[in-house]
């Protein structure tokens, strides 16, 4: 049945396009666009900070040495009781969180949805970030965890390294493309969840973490 429909649809498509010359897509329709171009910004990290704050997410800078204490500080600010730490996070962080008396949950074996729903916070790293749009991209590799981890808990502390921040979407797509080609799932996060569905009044935090806390790690 599906082959019949497939053949019919492809046949219709070919018939519909019969008026066009037999050229390759590239020869037929040139695209005047250069991919992966950076956007000129005065200061990429400052712009990134501006945008994150504009989204009403929290933003802090730290160094590699102070990262762990900032993670703990952030979690404590939000009254975190339990936090899920994906595998692959630096040991220093899990040690600091445990030492601060917060309940650490690991995802091995995988937490059930109910357990995840009852977990207050999650800490992840990321793959790349785009300054112009204040976007953080996860490819759910080591340190980031499977997608549900950064979705269900209400607080998401996200660690962004300074050299992961590029100017804008084109550079970011170029950086994340290999992960997509490896068939990794990808999540782009720009601020917290929001809706404007009721009378167009913007409401923050529908599903998804209502608190996003970004830690920018700058060694310089």
């Amino acid at each position: 049945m599906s082959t019949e429909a497939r053949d019919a649809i492809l046949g219709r498509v070919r018939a519909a396009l019969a008026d066009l010359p037999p050229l390759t897509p590239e020869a037929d329709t040139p695209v005047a666009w250069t991919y992966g171009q950076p956007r000129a910004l005065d200061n990429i990290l400052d712009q990134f900070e501006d945008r994150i704050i504009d989204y009403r997410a929290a933003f802090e800078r730290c160094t590699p040495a102070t990262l762990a204490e900032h993670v703990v500080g952030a979690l404590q600010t939000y009254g975190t009781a339990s936090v899920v730490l994906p595998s692959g996070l630096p040991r220093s962080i899990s040690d600091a969180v445990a030492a601060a008396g917060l309940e650490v949950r690991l995802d091995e074996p995988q937490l059930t949805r109910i357990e995840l729903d009852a977990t207050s916070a999650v800490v992840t790293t990321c793959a790349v970030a785009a300054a112009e749009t204040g976007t953080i991209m996860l490819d759910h590799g080591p340190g980031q965890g499977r997608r549900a981890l950064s979705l269900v808990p209400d607080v998401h502390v996200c660690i962004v390294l300074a050299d992961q921040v590029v100017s804008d979407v084109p550079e970011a797509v170029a950086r994340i493309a290999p992960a997509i080609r490896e068939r990794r799932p990808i999540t782009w996060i720009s601020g917290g969840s929001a809706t404007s569905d009721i009378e167009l009044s913007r409401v923050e935090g529908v599903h998804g973490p209502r608190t996003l806390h970004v830690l920018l790690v700058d060694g310089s």
Partner: protein
Amino acid sequence: MSKKLPVVTSRGGTVEPPRLTPAPPPGRLIDSPRFPAQAKVELGNPVQRKNLHHAMTTIRDKRARVAGELDNWEDLRLAGEAIKNRTLRHLDTYLVQLEENLTAAGTEVHWARDAEEANRIIVGLVEASLGETREVVKIKSMATQEIDMNEALEEAGIAAWETDLAELIVQLGHDRPSHILVPAIHRNRSEVREIFNAEMGTYGRPAPEGLDTEPKNLAGAARLHLREKFLRSKVAISGANFMVADTGTLVIVESEGNGRMCLTLADTLISVVGIEKIVPTVEDLEVFLQLLPRSSTGERMNPYTSMWTGPASGDGPQTMHVVLIDNGRTQVLSDPKGREALRCIRCSACINVCPVYEKVGGHAYGSVYPGPIGAVLTPQLRGVTSAVDASLPYASTLCGACFDVCPVRIPLPDLLVHMRHKVVEGKKAKGGVHTESAIMKATGRMFSHPRLWAAAVNAGALGGKALTGRVKHFGPLPWPLSKWTNARDVPIPPTESFRAWYARTHHEDGSLK
């Protein structure tokens, strides 16, 4: 397929079993009244008019601001147009490539020629995946609305729960969407509270006691009501904003996180997507993920975008299906002019800027897609013979504001005129007498014969001479002139036409007399 069976009563008759989900309004969209008739009804709704004016003005300003931030916005539009043109002009190549890569990534691909076939496939897939629970969660998808999927599932005894806040409001409100991005814009906050109080408890967790009308509390009620559905979901149904041919990746652009919930918590994911939603390569996403958020919600970037390429081990649904739907798209594709409408990325910028839409809202259009894109695409997909479809291309003043904001440069005003031509040709082919056609023929004759026109001009001046001194202007006149004069004064024609003045004051070579 276990269809819901009528319930046999104790008296031996049968009644329809109770519905699983709220009943939508009765009737089919294609049977809607002509646009002018429904528009008049909608004009009489002051709550909607106020909401629409506020919402559309706000969203227009936001879009203009963020589009204006990018100094290469026009280049982006040109690139978006070119990439979509390339895709459509070689759609067979890209469909085959997409299918190969979807399959290689572990996604099963299905093809559906029309709504009926699509629903048959979807119901079958859902049946095969469900255990005892007879419900699915869905992310907002125009394609599923087009094929009326929810009702097909309801008839098969499966409840489809909308999880997008506005679609939830529409579903619980026994209503139809009125916009493709903010479908409940015609409702104000007290109406939303009433709907939540009245209906949430019947279909899940009731609204909290003492719920007020603050949007953030209404959203909070939705969060709680939907949470339990997300956490127990087995099957999720989505659409897709983009499908990448060279990798088999699907992309969903959203704001609330309900998409992420559906995409990562269920065991089985079924994505229903129009065949035109393809982009050739991953790199092409850099163009569309700049164009779409700025054009739709007027943000630099929407809160959440999800991309996935087949099942990911240990993460989210392990069974994935994509249902590719035609449902009239190949018909549109076969029209060299009309196919430009298939570039649409469903951003709603045209709807938000349309002065006609702002007055009447989406329900006046009798179609899943309202506004300028709806007035073009719906008659292309459904044909121009129904009363509403024949009227849609005329639901526009051709002001051109829509083209200015379309991120993929669809020439909407030209396509509206193109579809008007199709309506006219359709009526001619059917035969019979049409007043408008006769008038147009006569007018055409007058304007292509200079002497006929000159005589008409003189007649106007004569009329003016007859009325001068007696009447200052025309007030209300009988039908059909009443269409104009009910609201507007009209001056009487001057006593001397321009050409008469020129002949009186100039020689033919332009020198003065």
